[in-house]
C-alpha cells in the first residue's frame, strides 16, 4: 500500500494555473510525482465529462487551477467550471466515489508556491484516501 503513488490530473487555466506552474518551475519547487498537466485556455473549457472520464480511466484525483472568482479573464469561466464540479460531485455520490478526489483551486498568475502546496496537499490526501477503485487493474 505504501508504494501507492496517486496520479493527479491538473487542469491549468492559461491565465493563472499555467503561469503558476511556470513560476513553480522557476522557483525550483518540486511537484509531486505523477502529476499530469493539461493546459486549457480558460477553466470554463473543462467539461464535466472530462472529470468522469479521467476518474474512470486514469486519475486518482483531479485538481482544477482556475483564476480567482470575479477575476476571470472571460468573466465567468471559473464560475462555470465550479458549477460543473458540483454537478460532478452529485454524480460521484450516486456512483459511490469520494468527492475529495475532485477539487478546484483558485489562484493568481504568480502563485507558484501555492500551486505546489495545493498539489502536495492533494497528493497526501489521496495517498491517505487510497487508490481509485476504477483505475485499479483487477
Amino acid at each position, binding site marked *: 500500500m505504501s508504494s501507492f503513488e496517486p496520479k493527479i490530473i491538473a487542469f491549468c487555466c492559461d491565465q493563472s494555473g499555467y503561469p503558476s506552474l511556470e513560476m513553480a518551475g522557476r522557483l525550483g*519547487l518540486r511537484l509531486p510525482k505523477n502529476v499530469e498537466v493539461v493546459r486549457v485556455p480558460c477553466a470554463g473549457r473543462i467539461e464535466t465529462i472530462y472529470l468522469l472520464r*479521467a476518474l474512470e480511466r486514469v486519475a486518482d484525483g483531479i485538481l482544477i487551477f482556475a483564476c480567482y472568482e470575479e477575476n476571470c479573464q472571460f*468573466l465567468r469561466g471559473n464560475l462555470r467550471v465550479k458549477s460543473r464540479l458540483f454537478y460532478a460531485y452529485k454524480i460521484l455520490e450516486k456512483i459511490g466515489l469520494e468527492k475529495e478526489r475532485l477539487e478546484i483551486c483558485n489562484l493568481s498568475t504568480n502563485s507558484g508556491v501555492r500551486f505546489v502546496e495545493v498539489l502536495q496537499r492533494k497528493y497526501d490526501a489521496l495517498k491517505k484516501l487510497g487508490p481509485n477503485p476504477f483505475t485499479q487493474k483487477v
Partner: protein
Amino acid sequence: MARIAVFIDSMNEKIPSSLKKKIYSFIEKTPDFAFYVEEEDLSSPEAVQRMVKLLSKGDADRVLIIGGSPKIYEKSFNKCGYPIPINPYLFSVANIREQLLWATIDEEEASEKAIEVIRRSIQMASLKRPINTQSISLKPEVLVIGGGISGICASLALARSGIHVDLVEKEKEIGGKASSIRFFYNTHQDAKAWIKERISEALLNPNISILTHSELIHLEGKLGRFKARIRRFDRNEIELSPSAIVVAVGFEIDHERKGIPAHERIINLSEMERLIYEARGPSIQWDGREIQFVTFFLDMVNEDIKIDSINAIKQAYILQEKFKCKVSILCKDVKVSSDGMERLYRKAREQGVLFFKYEEEPKVSIVNSQIQIDLKDTSLTLKKEDQWPISILSDLLVVGEAFVPNRETEVLSEILHIHTGSRGFLMEDNPQLMRIRSNRRGIFLLGGCRFPQEISETLIESRAVAQEVIALLKKGEFTYDLSVAEVDPKKCALCYTCPRLCPHYAITIERYAERNVYIDSGRGDTTNYWAARVDPASCFGCGICVGECPAKAITLNHLRDEQIYVEMGLM
C-alpha cells in the same frame, strides 16, 4: 501521414545527456518522425531563424518542440516578425522542463516520464489541424456616444487621423458636465476657456458630425458589421454603420447628503467652484458676508473616489492663497494618487490648509449662524483613548458629492450588450490591463461611465481610446485566426445556452445563409435553418460555450476534445 520535425531545446545543456540519448532513440522509432535538430536556446531569434530556414525546405509538415514552457516559444515566434512556413497551430510543445526536470527527483523516473510526455505530444502533434486566418474590412468610421469632454477629446484625436466620427449627444449642446469645471488642479489654464475651445474645435471639424439631442436606440451586428439606429430630436431615425464604437456617457452627480443637515451655509464642491470663479476683489462673499473660515467635509458619501479629494485640495489652495481664508479639510483619507497631486497637497499644507482625519462620524451643528463640526482626529494616533476631540467653527461648510451612473447607462448596456459592474457603472474587460476595452471587440469605454474620474485622467484615457481605435481601423481590415469556437448548425437545438453564457457577446442565434449573408466560418457550409453562430471576429476562444452546450454542437477549433483526452492520457 504526418511528418514531424522535432526540435529539441536543450535549454543551455539543462537536459542530462543520458536523457537526451533516450529521447533520440525514442523519437527515431516513431513512424511519423521526419528529422530532429538540437538547439541550445530555441527561443532566441537566431535559433528561430535557423528553424524557419530548415522548415522552408518542406521536409516536414508539423513541428514538435521538446523543451520548456509552450508560452516562451509562442512569444518568441510571435515576435520574430517574419512568416513561419508551417501553420502555427501545427506546433506542439512537450514541456519537459516545468513538468519534469524541475519537478521530479530521480533521473530514472524523470526520463521515464519524459518519454511518456513526448509520446503524448507526438500523438498530439499528429492530431493538430492547421487553422487559417480570415479578415473583415473595417471603415474609418466611429460612433462616439456621449458629447462630454471625454467624447469630444476622443473625437478630436480620431478626426485628426482622418477617421470620421459621429458624435451622439442626448442634450441640446455638447460639453456635458465639464462645462461646470472652472479650474484644473494641475495647470493654471482657465478651464472654462479651454473647454470652450475644444467644443468649438469639434463643431468646426469637418471629420466630426455632431448629432445633438439624439440617442442610440438599437445596435445590431458585430465588429465590422455594426448597425446603429439613432433617434433624432424630431423622432426621425438614422442608421449608421460604424466600425468601432466609443461609449463615453459619463456619470451623474447625486446631491443627496448623507446625514448632513440642509443649511444655507452648507454647500457642495461644484457650488464652491463657481463661487471662487465668480469672486471679484480680494475676498469671497456669501450671502453678502465675507467668508473667513471654510471647512471641507469629505468622504461621507463616496469614500473610494479621489475626485473629491482633488477638487477640495485644489479649491482650498486657492481660497487660502488668493482670498486669505482659513481652510480645514476633514476626510477619512487624503487621496493624492494623481499626477502632481502630491505636490499640490504639500503646497496646500505650506499655505496653511489644515488636514484632519476622522473615523467616527463627526457631528455637524449650527452655532450662531456658523457651522460647528466636532470630530476625533486620527491623523496622529489610531488609539481611541489618545485621539483628540476637535471643534471647528466655519462660515461655510463644503461637502462632497456622490457619483452615480447615468440614468441611461442601464438601457445602454442592454442595447450594446456590455456588462455593468456592481454599482451600475459600465464594466471594463480587465481593470488592470484593458481599462478602455469593453467585453465586446470593437466597443470601447471611456471616462466616467466606467468609474467617476478626474478630468485629467479622462483626458489621458481619451487619448488612449483614440490610439486603440486608430490601431484597430488603420489597416482597413481586422485579421483574426479561426482559433475560435464553432457551432455545428445541424446539431444546434436552439436552447440559447451559449448566447446567454458568452462573455463577449460573440454568439447570436442567426439564420444561416439567409440571403447568403453569413457563411459558416470553418467548412463553408450554408444551411437554411436557425442556429447559434459564433462570430469568429468577436470570439476570444475561451471555450465556455463548448463546455456548456447540451447538444455538444460546439467545438473549439484549436483545442478539440480528443486533444484534451490525449493530454489527459486517455488515448
